[in-house]
C-alpha cells in the first residue's frame, strides 16, 4: 500500500494537469504534485529503512529501490522547478502547451517510478517500454525537423532494443519454469533470487537471457553501439526533459540491468555478467570519449558525456567488490546532479544566444557571467576534478580496478578521463572566454532557474567533501542488496 502512492501520484497528477488551461495554474499544480510525490517517495524510503524490504505481488521495494527513488525525486524536483522558468518562452501550440508538457512529464515520471518499483520482471519490461512511449512526444515536443527526426529515431531504436529485452525476459522465464518454479511466480524477483541462489537454473539459458537483456536494456542505458538514439533525443528535447532523460531515465535502465546482474551472478557466478558489463562499459567510454572531442553542439556533447558516464557506472558494477559497487552507486547520483546542472546551463545558453552551436557562442564570461559560472562549475565537476563529488566516485571505481590488478581497464579508464577532461574544458572555455559579441541583449536568467542550479552546484561540492549520514545509510542499504 505504501508503494501505491509514489507510483500513482504522478499518474493522477498528469490527469489533473491536463485540466489546467492557464500556464500559471499549470505551473503551480505541477509543483504541488511534485511536492506530494516527494513526500510519498520519502515515506516509502523511510518504511523500507525502518522495516526492511516491502514485498508485494507486483510492487516491491528494497534498499536499491530506495536509492534510485531518491535520485528520481531529487532530479525531477530540480527539473520541474527549472521548467516553470523555462516554459515561459515556449509557444502555445495545440499539443505543445505547458499543460501538455507537464502532463507528459508526469506520465514519464510514472513509468520511471514503475520501473524501480516492479517486483515482476514482466512488469519491469512493460514499464521500461512505457518510458519510451511516454517520453517520445517530449523528445519531439518542439515539432521542428530535428525534433521529429529525433523523436522517430528514439521510438524506433528503443522499441527494437527493448524487444530484445523482452526476448531475454522470456528466456529467463523459461529457465525459471524449467528450474521448477510455478508459472505464476517464475517472473517474481524475490522468488527468482532465492531459486538462483540454489543454482536451480540451466546456466546456458541464463547466459542467453543475460546477453539479450544486456543488449535490450543496454539500448536504453546508451551503451555503444546501441546509443544512436541518445545524442539526438537529448539534443532535440526541451532542456528539462534532456535533464530527466540523462539523469533519471538512463539510471532507471541501469537499475533494470543491475537487477538482472544480481540474478545472473547468483545463478551462474559473477564471471559472465561482469565480463560483459566491463566490455560494454569500456567500449562505451572509449567511443564516447573520442566523440566528445569532435562535437559542435553543446547538448550533443553533454549527451555523449552521459554515454561515457554510463560506461563508467557499468565498469563499476562489472568490477564488483565493495569499492566498485559503492563507486557505481555514488556515481549514478553524482552524474545525475552534475548532468542536470549542465543541461540547465545549456538551456540558458540556448535561450540567451539563440543557438547551441559552440562555435557561435563567444565571450560568455562578460555577457552572461552567471551562465558561464554554472557551465564552469558543471564542467569541472563532470570531468571529475576534486573537490567535486564525481571525483570521489570515479576514484573509488579506479582504485577497485587497480586493487583487482585489472591494469588494462584502469589504464583505459584514466586515458579516457584525461581525453574527456581536455575536450570538455576546451569546448567550454572557448565559449566562455574571448571578446563578447557586439550587440548582446540583457542576459535572461529566471530566478527559478538560478535557484535550482545553485542547489545542484552546492550539492556537487558538498558530496565531494562529505557524504551526509542519511545518504550513507541509504548507500549502505543499497549495497546489501547488491552483494
Amino acid at each position, binding site marked *: 500500500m505504501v508503494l501505491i502512492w509514489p507510483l500513482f501520484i504522478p499518474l493522477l497528477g498528469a490527469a489533473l494537469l491536463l485540466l489546467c488551461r492557464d500556464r500559471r495554474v499549470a505551473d503551480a499544480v505541477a509543483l504541488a504534485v511534485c511536492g506530494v510525490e516527494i513526500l510519498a517517495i520519502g515515506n516509502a524510503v523511510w518504511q523500507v529503512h525502518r522495516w526492511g524490504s516491502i514485498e508485494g505481488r507486483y510492487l516491491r521495494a528494497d534498499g536499491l529501490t530506495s536509492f534510485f527513488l531518491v535520485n528520481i525525486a531529487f532530479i525531477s524536483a530540480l527539473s520541474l522547478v527549472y521548467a516553470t522558468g523555462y516554459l515561459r518562452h515556449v509557444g502555445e501550440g495545440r499539443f505543445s502547451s505547458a499543460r501538455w508538457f507537464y502532463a507528459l512529464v508526469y506520465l514519464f515520471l510514472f513509468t520511471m517510478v514503475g520501473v524501480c518499483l516492479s517486483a515482476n520482471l514482466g512488469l519491469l519490461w512493460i514499464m521500461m517500454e512505457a518510458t519510451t512511449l511516454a517520453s517520445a512526444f517530449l523528445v*519531439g515536443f518542439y515539432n521542428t525537423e530535428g525534433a521529429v527526426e529525433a523523436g522517430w529515431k528514439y521510438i524506433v531504436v528503443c522499441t527494437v532494443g527493448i524487444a530484445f529485452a523482452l526476448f531475454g525476459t*522470456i528466456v529467463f522465464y523459461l529457465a525459471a519454469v524449467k528450474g521448477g518454479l510455478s*508459472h505464476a511466480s517464475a517472473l517474481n524477483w524475490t522468488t527468482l533470487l532465492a531459486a538462483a541462489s540454489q543454482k536451480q537454473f540451466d546456466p546456458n539459458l541464463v547466459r542467453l537471457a543475460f546477453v539479450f537483456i544486456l543488449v535490450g536494456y543496454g539500448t536504453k542505458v546508451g551503451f555503444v553501439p546501441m546509443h544512436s538514439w541518445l545524442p539526438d533525443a537529448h539534443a532535440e528535447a526541451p532542456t528539462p526533459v534532456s535533464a530527466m532523460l540523462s539523469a533519471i531515465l538512463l539510471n532507471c535502465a541501469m537499475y533494470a540491468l543491475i537487477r538482472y546482474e544480481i540474478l545472473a551472478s547468483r545463478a551462474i557466478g559473477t564471471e559472465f555478467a561482469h565480463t560483459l558489463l566491463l566490455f560494454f562499459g569500456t567500449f562505451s567510454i572509449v567511443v564516447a570519449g573520442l566523440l566528445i572531442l569532435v562535437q559542435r553542439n553543446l547538448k550533443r556533447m553533454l549527451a555523449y558525456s552521459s554515454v561515457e558516464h554510463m560506461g563508467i557506472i557499468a565498469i563499476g558494477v562489472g568490477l564488483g567488490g565493495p569499492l566498485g559497487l559503492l563507486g557505481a552507486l555514488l556515481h549514478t547520483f553524482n552524474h545525475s546532479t552534475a548532468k542536470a546542472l549542465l543541461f540547465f546551463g545549456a538551456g540558458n545558453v540556448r535561450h540567451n544566444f539563440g543557438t547551441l552551436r559552440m562555435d557561435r557562442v563567444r565571450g560568455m564570461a562578460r555577457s552572461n557571467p552567471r551562465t558561464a559560472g554554472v557551465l564552469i562549475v558543471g564542467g569541472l565537476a563532470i570531468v571529475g576534478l576534486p573537490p567535486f563529488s564525481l571525483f570521489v566516485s570515479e576514484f573509488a571505481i579506479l582504485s577497485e580496478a587497480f586493487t583487482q590488478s585489472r591494469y588494462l581497464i584502469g589504464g583505459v579508464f584514466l586515458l579516457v578521463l584525461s581525453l574527456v577532461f581536455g575536450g570538455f574544458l576546451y569546448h567550454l572555455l572557448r565559449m566562455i572566454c574571448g571578446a563578447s559579441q557586439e550587440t548582446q541583449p540583457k542576459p535572461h536568467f529566471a530566478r527559478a532557474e538560478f535557484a535550482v542550479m545553485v542547489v545542484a552546484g552546492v550539492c556537487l561540492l558538498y558530496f565531494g567533501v562529505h557524504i551526509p549520514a542519511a545518504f550513507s545509510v541509504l548507500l549502505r542499504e543499497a549495497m546489501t542488496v547488491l552483494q
Partner: protein
Amino acid sequence: MEFVGIAAGKVVSTSAVFLILTIVGLAVARRISTCVLLFSMQSVIITAQVAATAYLENSREAWVVAGLVFTFKVLGIPYAFFWLVERLKSPRDVKASTTPAQSVFVVVVMVFISYAAVRSYVFGIRVPEDALAAAVALILTGAFLMVSRKKALMQMLGLLVLENGIFLAALTTTFGMPLVIEMGVLFDVVVGLLLMGIFTFRIRDTFEHLDVSRLRRLRG
C-alpha cells in the same frame, strides 16, 4: 473430440511451414498493403497456434490470449494500417533497398541460421524445433525488414513481425507468459504503434515524404 485434439496437434507442428511462407512473401512484396495482408495472415497462424495450445493444455488464460491476438493483430492493427496508408496519401511501394531476389536470399539464409541457432537449445528444453526456429526466423526477418525498407510504415511493420516472433518464442517454449504480463506487452505494442502512427503524420507534414533513410540531419 479425438479429432479436434489431433487437429490441434497438427496445427502446432505444421504452422512453422506456413510462417516461413509468409516470411518469404514479405521479402518479395512490393506494396505496403501486401505486407500488411501477409502480417495479418501470419497473425492468423499464430492465433491458431495459441488456440491449439489452449485446447491441448486446457487453459482458460490461453483462450483469452488467443482472442486478444485475433482482435488486435489479425483485425485491428492491419485495419489501422490500411487506414494510415489511405490517409497519408503517399506512394504505396515499400521502397526496398534490396531487390526481391536478394531479399529472398537473405531470408533463406536467416531461416538456416535460425535452425542452427536453436539446435543447441531444443534438446535441453524439449520444445518443437521447427516452431522455435520459425520464431527466431520471424525475429530476424522483422529486423531485416526494418533496416532494408525505407518507408516509415514498413519499419512499424518490421517491428510487428519481430514482436510476433518473440510472442511465438514465448508460446512454444513456455506456453506463453502469465496473462497479465501478456496483456501489458500487447498494450505497449498497441500504444507504441499509435505513437509511431502519429509520428508518421508529423514526418509527412515536416518533411513532405515518408522516406526515413532521408532523415539524416542529426549525425555524429
